[in-house]
């Protein structure tokens, strides 16, 4: 379509003004990401200068008001929580997608899809509230006080599973009809077709969905903040209270000043870069799939 405009008559003056205005809008939109990097880095710089990256990694503990800036326990907690959440949510999410497309009776498909979309759009603070009031007391019966790594993992996996389902569904729907008929001509059962033809063909899209879900899991703040107990320590088991990077920012921004505040911006910057790598990889995987 753009090609067509390119071949049409040259722009008239009012049109080029119009295009100029639109172009300014487009430049604004595409520069937001740069602005975010600029400002978050700018605010983080003092700490990089005064404290140095090394101490963020090698300080023993996180007592930012006493010049102790060890981020490692929180990094590890973030990592463990997201990985475990993905390990739970990935298979469940893909299975739920396979169910709707190939096993669900037709009357169930629409309400089922709406339920999944509803869960996908559920505000994190509402899931956190449910986790705090319902899930945490249940976990406390096994081992008090209940606010723990495992509570965070469960809430976050519930939060990202619909993302995996939605992405997997569109990947599975994108597999060519001819693959199905080819498999049927070979006499493959539905299960064999799924295992051997359809799932392998859709694996790029499914992987992209799982990466996006991982990005969401790492970036999730409120729900995790509400159920994990927020004690800065290395996680030693599912029932230990942990604090992740995102919650740390949300908890301490209120009173942080100087190097402490800059340190929070550094953790924000680290999060952004991590998520950026994950979503770029996801986009690349999905793009590769589209080009095939």
């Amino acid at each position, binding site marked *: 379509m753009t090609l067509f405009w390119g071949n049409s008559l040259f722009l008239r003056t009012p049109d080029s003004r119009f*295009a100029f205005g*639109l172009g300014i809008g487009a430049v604004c939109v595409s520069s*937001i990401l740069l602005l975010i990097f600029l400002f978050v880095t700018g605010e983080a710089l003092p700490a990089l200068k005064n404290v140095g990256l090394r101490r963020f990694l090698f300080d023993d503990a996180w007592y930012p008001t006493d010049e102790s800036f060890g981020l490692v326990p929180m990094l590890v907690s973030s990592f463990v929580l997201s990985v475990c959440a993905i390990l739970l949510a990935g298979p469940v999410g893909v299975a739920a997608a396979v169910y709707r497309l190939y096993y669900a009776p037709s009357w169930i498909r629409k309400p089922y899809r709406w339920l999944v979309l*509803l869960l996908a759009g559920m505000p994190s603070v509402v899931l956190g509230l449910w986790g705090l*009031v*319902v899930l945490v007391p249940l976990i406390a019966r096994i081992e008090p006080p209940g606010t723990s790594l495992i509570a965070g993992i469960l809430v976050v996996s519930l939060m990202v599973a619909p993302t995996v389902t939605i992405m997997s569904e569109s990947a599975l729907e994108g597999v060519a009809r001819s693959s199905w008929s080819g498999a049927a001509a070979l006499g493959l059962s539905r299960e064999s077709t799924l295992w051997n033809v359809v799932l392998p063909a859709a694996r790029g899209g499914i992987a992209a969905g799982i990466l996006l879900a991982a990005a969401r899991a790492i970036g999730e703040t409120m729900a995790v903040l509400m159920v994990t107990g927020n004690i800065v320590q290395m996680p030693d088991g599912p029932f230990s209270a942990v604090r992740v990077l995102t919650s740390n920012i949300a908890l301490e921004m209120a009173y942080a000043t100087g190097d402490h505040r800059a340190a929070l911006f550094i953790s924000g910057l680290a999060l952004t870069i991590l998520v950026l790598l994950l979503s770029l990889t996801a986009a690349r995987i999905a793009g590769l799939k589209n080009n095939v």
Partner: protein
Amino acid sequence: MSDSFSSSTERGRPHRIRDALLPVAAHLGALVLCGFAFWVIMDIVWRGAPGLDWSFFIDEPTSAGRGGGIAPILVSTGLIVITAIAAATPLGLAAAIFLVEFMPTGSRFAVWTSLSLDVLAGVPSIVFGLFGSAFFGLWLGMGFSILSGGLTLACMILPLLVRTTEQGLRMVPDDWRRGAAALGLSRFSAVRLVLLPAAGSAVTAGLLLGLGRATAETAALIYTSGYVDRMPSSLFDSGRALSVHIYDLAMNVAGGDENAYASALVLILFLIVVNVAAMSISDFLLRKKVST
């Protein structure tokens, strides 16, 4: 179908198990996902409904939100979301129109913009909060205000808005553009009279989705629009969003659970209405596309 291709090979036995496993896994995954979704929704409805009456919507909160209603919070939420939509709509539309109608596909600018939007869509909301408080709050001097929160949310929903508008415009058949050119319409008139009306429902669906996303957001608002639960008198006042209210009641106010649940129910009901509207519009679009 039982003597399928894979089960007639030497490795038939494990494959038969694997094939039997698939429907079980699919049903299980769907059951787990739907079960949890139902659990969360029923819990919110069950505990939220008793606190919900007319006075809850029109009263001021008393004793830190334990009693009273959420009138000022609803007003603040409305103002924040309207600010976000009002700021994001012109920018998003301009960017989308520019990308689709004025840029050759594959040009460097178009590629960079869409890449930056993909990344922007994945940036964690707490990082938007950091950026918002540094850029809008400090650098532009807006402090804790509804304006600063709304503009932060605008940055957050822009990717969604641009993407849906782009899709809507790309769905308009090229013949319409040729027809407009043949009638001697300038491109500005073509956009205004032909393309935007044709893409109108996609734009509306995108706006509604953005509205939902903005209303659900918490982490980006805590340090931009702030905590103050009084009735705002202007956009430069700090105002507490509904989701922030839920968070505060659940975490910082002992005995605030009942009102937290009632507020969560209000939030979810609003989101359901918005999402159902958005989905009906996009379903309608899909049917229209199939019929043409």
